[in-house]
């Protein structure tokens, strides 16, 4: 089964001992900060079952930010969406990699508050929360540029300069 990827900040999702303010089955509020919707939609990426496209998606996402930094993300089984009644549709993304935009970008649509809480609960209990270190992010972007996956002209200027500077140092 494919996975869905959502960029997060890992510390909002830490598994802590039961918080006294939480009723059984409830979720803490902090993770919801990573599920910010726009028009009741949430942007995610579809990751192949064998994760063959994972690094390409990560590179595209990381290259679209202001600066090079660690990249935290959550992966959940795409099938879980059906269980919690969330609709997932294919839409065109806005990253500097057209394959990522056209093939793997998805929107979770028509989201309600309860949907978001249910999604947060699935990510908290069944999702993988992972971190790509800053040096690894540099490697991923550099590889994606070298392989022609990333449109260098669409990478954030600051990041483009860093990647260029790194290449100049290496050569």
């Amino acid at each position, binding site marked *: 089964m494919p996975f869905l990827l959502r960029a997060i900040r*890992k*510390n909002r999702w830490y598994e802590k001992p039961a918080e006294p303010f939480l009723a059984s089955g409830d979720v803490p509020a902090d993770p919801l900060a990573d599920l910010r919707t726009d028009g009741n939609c949430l942007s995610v990426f579809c990751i192949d079952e064998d994760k063959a496209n994972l690094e390409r998606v990560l590179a595209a996402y990381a290259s679209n930010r202001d600066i090079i930094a660690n990249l935290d993300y959550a992966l959940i089984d795409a099938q879980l969406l059906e269980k919690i009644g969330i609709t997932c549709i294919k839409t065109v993304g806005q990253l500097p990699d057209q394959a990522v935009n056209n093939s793997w970008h998805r929107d979770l649509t028509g989201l309600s508050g309860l949907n978001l809480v249910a999604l947060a609960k699935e990510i908290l209990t069944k999702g993988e929360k992972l971190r790509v270190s800053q040096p690894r992010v540099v490697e991923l972007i550099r590889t994606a540029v070298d392989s022609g996956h990333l449109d260098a002209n669409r990478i954030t200027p600051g990041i483009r300069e860093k990647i260029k500077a790194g290449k100049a140092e290496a050569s």
Partner: protein
Amino acid sequence: MNPDVVQTALQSGAWFGSDSGAAIPAIDLHSHQFPVWARRDNDPQTARGDGAPFEGPESSTADQKRIKSLFEHLDSTFERGRDMRFEDGMESEFSRELVRLVELHGIVALAIIGRLIADQRSGGEVAGEALRWLGRMEQSQFHWARMRLFEESLCSPSPAVRDGAILALASLNDPHAIPYIRGAVQQETIRELREDMEQVLAQLQDAESCLSC
């Protein structure tokens, strides 16, 4: 601004004013926090400093006013940060202002930020964001002062601060932090955070190996 002067002003507590002074715990200048930071950056010949407290001159009223003003500015910047949503890799009004103030006021700003973080007045999320951005500043800027702040923040009761500290130390990529991170790994009770610390530990051990090559 002379850090000795700042130290004296911090020690006296006079610049906090009567309204806020009571709410801010006194800085123990013999804990090697602020004075050692200053010494490390101001004296490149003593790369690590010797830990001796400064014996600075009395601060002037003008310096005290400037420090108080900077404290209030940073405090309100942190306070505004509470209403912001931070994302890794994305600048914000908070990050731009924080970096600007540190570039402008240097060690004094860092000392105040260290205190705001330790006091947890604005919550772990804002403090963690501040540490991330301090870690990303140009390598030569107040390296040891920042290092000290990050190492101490690994012991924060807030997981978000500890996470910000480990990311900041990853950005500095200085093997000096290795024993501090080892200690933090042993103390860490949150599995995911412990794993992230171990990842940074491995990164710094690689950096250390490269240095000795």
